[in-house]
């Protein structure tokens, strides 16, 4: 797990190293201070040597200043390293998700991906910052303190050698005991928040069915459960304070007793005894810090796992060495024995044994019920998904042998769930072609019947689109999306239910424009409305992952039961009955 994260430290290794050095130096200097103090008392005071006192005092001052400089430098260095690491990790995650194929994306929910790139990265970064500061410092403090204490008096240090491991084990036991309890508590916490969120989304249902009282009781139950779980976990963790205090105090008393004896025996000096007591707090504090690191690493390990999962995700649609970047010239399409399943093992096929040939410049209508796999069918053409069996050919070339970029530049698709991005209309349109001139954009908008409503906005093409396109209506959004797709100058255009919110007259006008201005372009139109496809060259009728029939509107109306049924349900009583 940690191995996967290592590369994102690249370029910051030296900062980590310098930071570690600074922190080590700071720690050692800090520990030397009480040691010097002992010298002042034992040598300076005892010998009544004022010069010595001032000399050592001055030295202590210099050391403290050095230590301060080291500490400040370490703060800066660790900030650079930790945040640099976090930002590289975030970038890597973002880039990785950008290279995800559709099936990779389908595996995760969008909010969960957002959480990973934001909250989880922050958690890991925080842990890393803490580690750079304390992971080095605490052990150094611990070891040096014990060493110096041993130098002062090798007998008295035995007190530490006995107590430290015992406390260590006790702290470790507390963590081990409390961690599963905390995990349980966090799960309850997430569950509670999820149910609040659900209640929030469904508040109209709750109110309409007068279920507030019921919801309140339900919430109280899980809220109380959360409290109990939390108390259970914290009960264990708060034990660390009495344990720490107890061991600190025990050490002090032991040192006073045994150390007092040594002083009386003149085997030890008073100043040394005093500095020894100072080391008690230092040693035990670093022990405490070590246990805190442990807790934090455990807590953030869930975030690390979630990040690593994304980073290690295998991208299933990529170019191979021999992918050709030769542009697509004509735009004919062929499906040869194509089957498709969303599952890796190929079970539960949603498309089965599809064989169809589409000539360049043809307009194809596609119709079928929800779940009949119309969208899946067209998504195989720009390789948004790869066929599980059989092959999809464009211009006679297998799509798997064409560079993805080349393929998708020539196959323009307007998705069913489409989005506009925050930015001006012009900026949104230029997603289709970064270098499109304003005139080209206007032309595309004229074809998609968007020009008139754009011009009706006070700021025309400079109108700012809010995130998600919330400030334009559904029909307007769809027409902008079509214009954006047209700017690619594609050989093949796929409209996946892209005019559902557009009125039939505008819909017809768009189709007319497409036919007149872009007659060489192959067009595939998926629609719910018969009127959107009835003048297509051919219509494919989908049912349960099969092409059930192919023909013109007139042919299908005569012979195809499904087509007739859909036609009737839409036309009945509207035009004539």
């Amino acid at each position: 797990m940690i191995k996967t994260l290592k590369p994102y430290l690249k370029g910051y290794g030296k900062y980590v190293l310098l930071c570690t050095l600074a922190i080590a130096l700071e720690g050692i200097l800090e520990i030397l201070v009480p040691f010097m103090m002992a010298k002042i008392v034992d040598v300076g005071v005892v010998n009544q040597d004022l010069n010595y006192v001032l000399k050592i005092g001055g030295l202590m001052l210099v050391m403290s200043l050095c230590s301060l400089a080291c500490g400040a430098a370490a703060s800066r260095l660790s900030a650079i390293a930790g945040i640099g690491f976090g930002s590289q990790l975030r970038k890597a995650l973002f880039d990785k998700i950008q290279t995800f194929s559709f099936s990779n994306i389908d595996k995760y929910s969008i909010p969960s991906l957002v959480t990973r790139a934001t909250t989880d990265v922050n958690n890991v970064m925080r842990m890393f910052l803490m580690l750079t500061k304390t992971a080095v410092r605490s052990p150094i403090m611990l070891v040096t303190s014990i060493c110096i204490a041993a130098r002062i008096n090798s007998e008295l240090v035995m007190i530490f050698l006995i107590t430290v491991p015992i406390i260590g084990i006790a702290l470790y036991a507390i963590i081990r005991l409390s961690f599963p309890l905390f995990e349980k508590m966090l799960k309850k916490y997430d569950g509670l928040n999820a149910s609040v969120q659900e209640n929030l989304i469904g508040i109209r249902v709750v109110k309409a069915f007068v279920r507030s009282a019921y919801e309140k009781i339900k919430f109280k139950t899980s809220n109380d459960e959360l409290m109990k779980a939390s108390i259970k976990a914290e009960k264990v963790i708060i034990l660390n304070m009495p344990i720490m205090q107890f061991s600190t105090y025990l050490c002090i008393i032991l040192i006073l007793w045994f150390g007092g004896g040594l002083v009386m025996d003149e085997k030890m000096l008073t100043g040394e005894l005093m500095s020894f007591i100072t080391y008690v707090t230092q040693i035990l504090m670093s022990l405490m810090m070590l246990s805190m690191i442990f807790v934090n690493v455990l807590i953030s390990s869930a975030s690390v796992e979630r990040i690593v999962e994304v980073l290690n995700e295998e991208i299933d649609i990529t170019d191979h060495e021999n992918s050709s970047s030769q542009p697509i010239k004509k735009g004919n399409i062929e499906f040869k024995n194509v089957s498709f399943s969303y599952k890796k093992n190929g079970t539960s096929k949603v498309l089965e044994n599809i064989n169809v040939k589409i000539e360049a410049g043809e307009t194809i209508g596609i119709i079928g019920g929800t779940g009949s796999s119309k969208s899946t069918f067209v998504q195989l053409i720009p390789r948004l998904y790869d066929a599980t069996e059989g092959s999809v050919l464009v211009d006679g070339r297998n799509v798997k042998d064409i560079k993805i970029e080349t393929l998708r530049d020539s196959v323009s698709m307007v998705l069913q769930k489409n989005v506009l991005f925050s930015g001006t209309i012009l900026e949104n349109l230029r997603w289709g072609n970064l270098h499109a001139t304003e005139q080209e954009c206007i032309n595309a908008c004229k074809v998609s019947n968007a020009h008139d409503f754009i011009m009706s906005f006070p700021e025309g093409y400079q109108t700012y689109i809010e995130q998600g396109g919330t400030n334009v209506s559904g029909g307007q959004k769809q027409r902008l999306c079509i214009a954006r797709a047209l700017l690619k100058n594609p050989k093949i255009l796929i409209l996946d239910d892209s005019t559902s919110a557009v009125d039939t007259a505008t819909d017809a006008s768009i189709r007319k424009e497409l036919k007149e201005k872009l007659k060489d372009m192959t067009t595939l139109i998926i629609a719910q409305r018969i009127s959107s496809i009835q003048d297509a060259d051919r219509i494919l009728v989908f049912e349960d992952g099969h092409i059930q029939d192919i023909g013109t509107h007139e042919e299908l109306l005569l012979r195809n039961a499904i087509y007739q049924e859909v036609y009737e349900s839409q036309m009945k009583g509207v035009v004539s009955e």
Partner: protein
Amino acid sequence: MSRKPNHPTKTFLRVLSYLAEKKFLFVLVIFLVLMNSGAQILGNYFLKPIINDYISPMIGVAKENRVYTGLILILFQLACIYITGILCGYAYKYIMMKLSNEALNRMREDLFNKMQDLPIQYYDTHAHGDIMSCYTNDIDTIREAMSEGFTAIISSVVSVGGTFIMMLMISPFLTMFILIMAVLMILIIKKFGSLSSSFFKKQQKAIGKVNGYVEEMFEGVKVVKVFNYENKTMEEFDKINNELKDAAIDANTYASIIMPIMGNLSYITYAIIAAMGAVQVINHMLDIGSLAAFLQYTRSFSHPLTNLSQQFNSILQALAGAERVFALIDEKEEVNNGKVTLVNVKKENGKLVECEEVTHLWAWKHPHGDRYELVELKGDVRFHDVVFGYEKNHTVLKHINLFAKPGQKIAFVGSTGAGKTTITNLINRFYDVNEGMITYDGIDIRLIRKEDLRRSLAMVLQDTHLFTTTVRENIRYGNLNASDEEVIEAAKLANAHGFIEHLPEGYDTVIRGDGANLSQGQRQLLAIARAAIANPPVLILDEATSSIDTRTEKLIQDGMDKLMHGRTVFVIAHRLSTVRNSDAILVLEHGEIIERGSHEELLAQKGKYFELCMGVSELS
């Protein structure tokens, strides 16, 4: 969101009132914290007599001549003080842990209960994310501050104060140095605090930008792929990510640099005191035991000071969070002063009589003084000259008059924003009319208790919201007292029984939050079953079938027809095929009914409805 609270004292006291629900325990906590810190301070003070009176005099004395009783006695006293301290420490931690958990529990409960009582208007005007963050971010910061901050402040103040007094007692001269250092430290904390908060603001802004971009680009990642835009978005992200990095490095540096500065300043103080003290000892102005104790105090003086400065920040943040939580708790509840209630009745000699048992016959109980009148629940809904707007100066409905007799099906057609959904919002009193009146079986709905009014209506909405529980419980949501048999019956009525049987665990299949394991059509059928089991006389279908294709709709239609039979139904639909067989179709535009009549009549009028049917106009 701001990090600074507007009314820190008021909010603090209110948080305290949650904590101090059990006053005795709360006072006890304060007492125990005092004892714990006191024990520590007193313990340090013992160093002086131990060294001065019991160790130093024995130096060089032969082992046989030494008197240990004094030392043993004083060490025993010290141990007693320490043990008291430890016990008090553990006790306050334990009580505080319980108190704060209980306080948070109550806070969450108050929050949730209030949420249930808020009018729909609140939800229409506040982002879900903001409400959720009360539960997550805000409660979290309060939790941290409660469990650590509160007691830390008490013990820090006690430690600093107590230590200061002790130091003063030992040596006023040396204490002066400590005082100078303390002032210096506070100045540094202030300086760095304001520095870091200005960098922090910059960082927050950058975080907002990065998070926003991540959200937008992940939401649209499929579009990015279709347009080969990956490299472009990566470049853009690189830019804003670097901006964040620069801001974060500065913010973090200044936030974390306080610690080493404070820590080392305390060592500098320590060094100065050690040297100065030693000089005094040499000049016989101070004894060695006092110096030892003073040095120990020096060390324990700066730690709580640093701690205090750290806690202060987190407490301010918690108070800002608490302010948001309390703002929600203080929101005005939905007004509910209706007196008319819905009761079970039976017919005796042709007269309605109220009764306890379930009779499937209901009546409105309308009190007039101490007498009351029973009006049979039929489902007759009328709008009398209704005017309504969500905001002042912006009318959505203008003088609407309409009537629906029991058992009639009334359809609304019109584009988004024409006011269709508003009408249903008014019928179940999610909002109240500004002018005019809506009557239900002849009673002004404002006189009816909201629970009872809503119980007499059922809604099927476009976004079929299902809950994360079993299919059975989801259907039962319409009527909590329904038996398993009644659930199945309702499912059969809605034509949902068939597919439910085919689910892995039938009626016990758990529906996941996003309902990903069910198709849109299936979810819709469950919503219809849920409405069916409620068995109300009036039904509102708001775009209930709009996301279903026409073929699937035909399958649902049968279930819908059965559900609608014998009820007053309001249908709002985008698709015209759904509204065709209504008793009356109302075409709404800009908040006015511009056409009304049956399908045939409206077609014959060749007005807006005709245009819509012919597809000349756009509905969006």
